[in-house]
């Protein structure tokens, strides 16, 4: 099978700072996870793959075409960017429809496509509200809808689950899984292994702009699981939440963060922990506002992997 995305000896410098360092990689069709801590070069890689950045060295090809200065290729590419930025005064429908029209669709076709894309991410009910009033989960969904609206062959999702609540996280994961099952190729970046692992077994590990590893997740999981994982839970009743999770056997420690109204949990069984979260969030008073994994934690794991 021909690769969907090919990086050949690609380097990208921002002045003296290296974003990507001599990266050569072929990404096959299907869902692939791009994993790495902050500053690993994930966003740079995705910006290079979507033609926003020009490689300082090497070549980037998507669907067998050079990406840089090739706007026609964007008909087949969708990007859900990392930044939480929108035309805030627009409604969700307006925003997605504008993106459809920018992709070349006429007024009626763009409206139809926007409604379908919005439906596919479960935002129909809120599509006529101004984006400035959306929750983080809604914003991620509408961002995904604009990436889907022109029905691209290849999707690049940059940290699509960041800052979302468990329910939105689950829904967004389902959407990505359906896209993969529907024959789309998806490259999804994250700094949380468990998120990526829930989406695909095929992962690419980046660190400091270099390819650290690629292949099946199982091969590196064993190494990574030797390190305790820190997971941050933000909840109005954070003290009650701390008491609740401390009772779990796999939780090694809980640190209360009154200023952030949350707790940092350390566990050696992150999979089991994440699986229990949705049920926990449904308990009275324990609605979780945000769940994320500390970047420093993953950085430590990567240091370990590099040394290993």
């Amino acid at each position: 099978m021909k690769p969907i995305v090919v990086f050949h000896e690609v380097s990208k410098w921002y002045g003296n700072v290296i974003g990507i360092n001599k990266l050569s990689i072929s990404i096959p069709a299907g869902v692939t996870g791009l994993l790495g801590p902050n500053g690993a070069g994930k966003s740079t890689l995705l910006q290079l793959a979507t033609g926003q950045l020009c490689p300082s060295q090497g070549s980037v090809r998507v669907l067998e075409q050079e990406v840089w200065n090739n706007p026609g290729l964007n008909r087949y590419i969708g990007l859900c960017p990392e930044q939480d930025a929108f035309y805030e005064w627009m409604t969700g429908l307006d925003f997605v429809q504008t993106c459809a029209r920018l992709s070349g669709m006429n007024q009626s076709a763009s409206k139809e496509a926007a409604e379908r894309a919005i439906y596919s991410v479960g935002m129909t009910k809120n599509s006529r509200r101004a984006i400035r009033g959306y929750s983080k989960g809604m914003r991620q969904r509408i961002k995904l809808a604009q990436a889907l609206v022109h029905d691209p062959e290849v999707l690049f999702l940059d940290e699509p689950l960041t800052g979302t609540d468990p329910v939105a996280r689950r829904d967004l994961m389902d959407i990505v899984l359906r896209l993969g099952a529907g024959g789309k190729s998806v490259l999804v970046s994250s700094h949380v292994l468990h998120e990526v692992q829930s989406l695909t077994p095929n992962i690419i590990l980046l660190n400091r702009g270099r390819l650290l590893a690629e292949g099946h997740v199982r091969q590196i999981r064993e190494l990574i699981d030797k390190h305790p994982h820190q997971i941050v839970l933000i909840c109005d009743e954070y003290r009650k939440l701390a008491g609740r999770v401390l009772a779990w056997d796999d939780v090694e420690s809980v640190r209360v963060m009154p200023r952030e109204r949350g707790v940092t949990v350390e566990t050696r069984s992150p999979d089991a922990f994440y699986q229990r979260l949705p049920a926990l969030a449904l308990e009275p008073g324990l609605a979780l506002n945000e769940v994320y994994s500390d970047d420093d934690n993953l950085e430590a794991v990567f240091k370990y992997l590099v040394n290993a």
Partner: protein
Amino acid sequence: MTVTAISDMPQSDRLARTSGFGLSAISAMFGLTIRQHLNGKRWMVLAGLFLLPVGLAILIRAVSPDVPHRLLEFLLAFMFIPQALLPLVALVYASGIIQDEQEDQTLTYLLVRPLPKWSIYVVKLLGTLTTAVLLTSMFTILTYIAVYIGSPEGAGSVVTRCLKAVGIHSLAVISYSCLFGLLSLFTRYTLIIGILYTALVEGLLANLPFGIRLATVIYYTRLIAYRSLDFIVNVHGHTTNASANAWQLDVRNDPNLLEHPSLRSCLMILAGASILLTFVGAAMCSRCEFRVKTPGGN
């Protein structure tokens, strides 16, 4: 709730709908730019500034009813507006053509569409010119109403003068916008550099009777105004050419200003320069790499 809903569409239909760079994409970009301007607060600030000449006209007429209307017109519509307001309107809008999208991190949504980068710049510039011209025209007309309402000057003459002023101001604001739009592709400090340029070059140097003023927008704007409108006013029994004196035009030795470009040349220079600046900006954009800062920090 599945995404296959989109994929279910026939391939031919899908390809037709995503045919890319076309009128629909251009009109969407143009509409987006205008809506961004309307949703921002800048137009309100600029409208407030544009109300200054209107307010001044009302105030001066109320306090000193003897001031000739034509002198008032000259001072407000041809000294204050082109010298102070038009560069400001152009600077405020044109400096943000690409930079606003970069700072708001929304440029990504435009860059990942099947649109050449030069077209993003050109269409957004056209949207900017539309906003600037509409704003300028509206308040130029208001200034004329404030200056001439109830005056003995014939309505036909006032309307003609007003329309000429609207045209001159529009051409000037277009030239300024194209200039500052291009400048914004070179530096992030367009506002500061633009204000310095306006004060030093368009303000100071253009008022000196040297050749350097041929490189300023205001010089051609004034010449067009001088050659298409007269500003002969009678103040306390003395007839004087207000514009020649104020604009350092030596009408005593060169009554027909033969040493200066003709009306047609001035129009062509401003229009030509605007087109040239737009082409240079478009060419730059097609090669440019626009970096949008991500939370990760690249």
